[in-house]
């Protein structure tokens, strides 16, 4: 296996790992969103979904550890790549114009760090509930927990902002995975870029719809 670690530790290999783990995390975002959207079908739907997940027992933990592994791999590669990117230009330009570099691509590190901070906050908020002991009294009523959580305007706004940043991250990240994996074809390039950006927007809108609907009292 030495050959694999050697290759994956090179600059191109690290980008391949970024792309594959990024796509896996995108898969998780889709599944998590589909589950969350059952919130709009009422308390029975989302509470039932949560109960089904918990009933999986050990499988949930397997999935959680796999997800943690993927997240850590994506994050550690990002840190390594960023450090070498910063080191590659020790003296900055006095005057530099970007002709093609998108704002989203320039913000990848910042949006990525914000997502990390958000994930930690989100885990504490709704999963571990360390600083939200009041949720423990709800006896698994996820529906009420969501409404209570997002009825706090600051919390809801923080979620909305974080999800917008996630959307910005995906806006560059998703189409970029194809290039990192060597997929480039004049017949499909437009579709790859369009679908990548489309899913970035759809995911952002999908997740934001939940805190927004609670914040504006559409769902009480």
């Amino acid at each position, binding site marked *: 296996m030495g050959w694999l670690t050697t*290759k994956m530790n090179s600059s191109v290999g690290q980008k391949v790992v970024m792309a594959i783990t990024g796509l896996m995390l995108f898969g998780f975002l889709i599944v998590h969103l589909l589950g969350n959207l059952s919130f709009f079908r009422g308390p029975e739907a989302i509470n039932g979904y949560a109960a089904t997940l918990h009933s999986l027992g050990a499988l949930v933990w397997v999935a959680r550890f796999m997800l943690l592994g993927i997240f850590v791999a994506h994050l550690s590669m990002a840190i390594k*790549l960023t450090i070498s990117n910063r080191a590659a230009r020790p003296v900055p330009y006095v005057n530099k114009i970007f002709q093609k570099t998108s704002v989203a691509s320039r913000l990848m590190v910042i949006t990525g760090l914000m997502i990390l901070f958000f994930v930690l906050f989100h885990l504490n908020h709704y999963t571990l509930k360390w600083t939200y002991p009041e949720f423990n009294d709800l006896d698994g009523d996820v529906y009420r927990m969501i409404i209570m959580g997002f009825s706090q305007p600051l919390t809801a706004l923080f979620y909305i902002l974080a999800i917008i940043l996630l959307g910005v991250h995906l806006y560059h990240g998703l189409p970029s995975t194809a290039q990192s994996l060597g997929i480039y074809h004049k017949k499909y390039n437009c579709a790859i870029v369009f679908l990548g950006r489309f899913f970035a927007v759809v995911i952002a809108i999908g997740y934001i719809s939940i805190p927004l609907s609670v914040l504006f009292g559409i769902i009480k």
Partner: protein
Amino acid sequence: MDFKVHVWRQKNRNSQGKMVTYELANISEEMSFLEMLDVLNEQLIGRNEEPIAFDHDCREGICGACSAVINGVPHGPEHGTTTCQLHMRSLKGVRELFVEPFRSRAFPIIKDLVVDRSAFDRIISAGGYVSVNAGSAQDANNLPVPKEAADKSFDAATCIGCGACVAACKNASAMLFVSAKISQLALLPQGDPERDRRVSKMVKQMDEEGFGNCTNTYECEAACPKEISVENIARLNCEFLRSTFISNEE
């Protein structure tokens, strides 16, 4: 044309550089950018000051010697043009010029605007060649090459190795250069036997030289005076995956 020219002045590799401002009057719009620097240098010499050091050779846009980031863009604002072929008429309406060297850890500054681009030579030495003598031209139909592959290989081969891709990239990545050199050979039958070894060695050397990583911003393609496509970077990635997972290369 009158200009206020801000130029990066740096005595040598180890000294600290800084931007120095010069006033320049009566520049003809028919002059090339380098001729404008020649005029400025004559004035500096006349005042017993050190002239600005800059790279140049053919002044025809084909050798890859000239460099400089002009008003924030490598080789200046005109698309698909080297600094030597940039004419002052393209800078109509511009009053201030910012002239800086290509900035990258892998391209140390030798003096003023002159940078050491031998890192590119070492990447080529690592594998950017065909080891055996490919012989003289064969009968045209002896070695069939699809037209599409021949065109793409030729397009990649037009890379003059100037380093504008590195200068333009926010990460100072050399991926466009390396990918062009890999593509021009990978697309042809003569380059095929060594393709797996080639990509491994060239990427390894690129990393050792201290270039940054490609984050797919395509700034390199926009700055390239030869308009090399980022399709080559995807091909490099593909060649790299092939050499990792399919070939016997270790």
